[in-house]
């Protein structure tokens, strides 16, 4: 009895040690962004100070400088612009494709699904070289439209895969009942399947948006003027000037661009996991 209790206590302590250690490892950079962003410059660069402690009162000077002296605000707007358009294109292409894969295309659809999955093997690091040429030929170089054109090439395959998983989880009877009531299959899809899949569609939208925020290689290749950058490229390339680092503003910029999206993402992560595993396991 007592050994059992001791053992349970040991298991719990072990679990919390693992959770604590790994959580600190994973979340620390974000805490560090937050601390750095609000420290006064004189406090930040004093080697005698404990870096975790505020010796002087917190300040908003870095955040202020970020929005008044740099193009950060425009980068955020650029990212939102590209993100919204790419999400729209992705949904228009991936929702019907996911439905076709789940219901209509039988065995060759299964092969096609694996084919779409395999486009992952052709990564941006292989495609950015020919695509940079295509973008120049279309006169889209240094334009946000080049990103709008190219980004669906990686959001669509993954989204179609996810949507397929969501649609497979819907009982077939629902559409069949609607079709008996006189709807065509397409009508049943729009009036019955799409409405009950709204949360799945929202998951795909948010997921595609985060993929757009993540993308780096295409943006750094296609865009040359600082005004047209997305936030993910602007912060590491233009806020870092040679060897001069404005760490306060940099960290403020990092925090603003990462944590709000993460909070949004957190609301749909369960559905994302369900879709991911449903797509992978029949």
């Amino acid at each position, binding site marked *: 009895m007592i050994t059992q209790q001791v053992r349970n206590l040991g*298991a719990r302590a072990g*679990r919390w040690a*693992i*959770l604590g250690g*790994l959580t600190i*490892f*994973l*979340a620390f*950079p974000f805490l*560090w962004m937050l601390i750095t962003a609000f420290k006064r410059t004189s406090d930040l660069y004093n080697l005698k100070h*404990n*870096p*975790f402690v505020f010796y002087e009162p917190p300040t908003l000077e870095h955040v202020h400088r970020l929005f008044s002296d740099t193009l950060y605000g425009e980068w955020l707007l650029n990212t939102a612009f590209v993100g919204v358009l790419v999400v729209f294109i992705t949904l228009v292409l991936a929702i*019907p*494709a996911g*439905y*076709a894969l789940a219901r209509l295309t039988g065995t060759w659809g299964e092969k096609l699904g*694996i084919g779409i*999955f395999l486009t992952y*093997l052709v*990564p*941006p*690091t*292989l*495609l950015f*070289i*020919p695509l*940079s*040429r295509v973008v120049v030929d279309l006169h889209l170089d240094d334009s946000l439209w080049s990103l709008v054109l190219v980004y*669906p*090439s990686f959001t*669509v*395959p993954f989204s179609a895969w996810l949507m397929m998983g969501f649609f497979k989880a819907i009982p077939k009877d629902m559409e069949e009942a609607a079709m008996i009531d006189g709807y*065509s*299959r*397409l009508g049943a899809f729009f009036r019955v399947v799409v409405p009950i899949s709204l949360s799945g569609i929202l998951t795909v939208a948010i997921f595609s948006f*985060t993929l757009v925020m993540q993308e*780096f*290689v295409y943006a750094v290749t296609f865009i040359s003027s600082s005004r047209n950058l997305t936030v*993910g490229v602007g912060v*590491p390339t233009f806020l870092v000037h040679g060897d001069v680092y404005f*760490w306060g503003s*940099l*960290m403020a*910029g*990092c925090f603003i*661009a*990462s*944590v709000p*999206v*993460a*909070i949004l993402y*957190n609301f749909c*992560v369960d559905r994302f*996991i*369900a879709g991911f*595993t449903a797509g*992978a*396991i*029949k």
Partner: protein
Amino acid sequence: MDSSTQIASAAANRAHNQRRAVSLLDSERWLGPLLIGPAILYIVLLVGVPFFMALYYSISDTTTGGGTQGFVGLRNFTGVVGTPKFQTALKNTFTFALISQAVILLLSNTLALALQKDFRGKRLIRFLILLPWVAPISIGTIAWLWIFDSTYSVLNWTLRMAGLIQGPGYMWLGVPHLAMGSIIAVHVWRQLPLATVILLGGLSSIPKDIHDAAAVDGAGFWRHYFQVTLPLILPISLVAILFGLIFTFTDMVIIYNLTRGGPYDTTQVLASLAFYTGIAGGDLAEGAAIALFLFPLLLAVAFGFLRVARRTEVI
């Protein structure tokens, strides 16, 4: 009477037209391709065509200036494969991918097991754990650049306070082996959340009776884990490793932002070398040849895993 027949015939007409349109859209032979067609077309135009362009570039002498596109056979490959720069990058690619995947596999299994049971504060912990994966990676690496800073490194400060080092501390990104270690640590940091989430999905899909049966049979923790849990989550782990390996072989953002391949090319991998040669150096042909070198590797990894996954009935 006249108008009512008109209405009736119009209605019949409309019904007829509708039925024709409906039957075309209803015949599953046409509806399927119609729904999936636009997506396939987009992928073919923006992934398929550029892929073959890359194949063509790699056997031509194209440059960013739009220079001649003469056929040069395998000269780009033979020319580049022998260079020390390429061989270092190839070796680094494997070191980087294999070590980071091994660490990720170990840590994600541990973390997923620790997260399996419900406890107070689990949602908050899960949010914190997911942060590195959700945040834009280029931005996350900038935080690490600050953590690894040569003068103000918080890591060095902590080690000094703990009495583990004296003096100014390590140059985390400036010394060959240490730089590779730092890059791997950041990569593990970035990929651990996704791997953990995938494994958690696998763990939660195991029926509870199986665990109960093992407990009744008196299996201890390790026996339970290795003989019950691990075999059941093996398929989904393979999916996690497949994603991880492909991602690791092709990613260059961490290296681009933290070390630019240095010091002395000790952290240069094929993906970053292709970028520096093809875009920064302007030699599209040689860049494409380096990037293409990755492709057979990825293909082999993917087919290997798909085979195993099929046999164990994933996908």
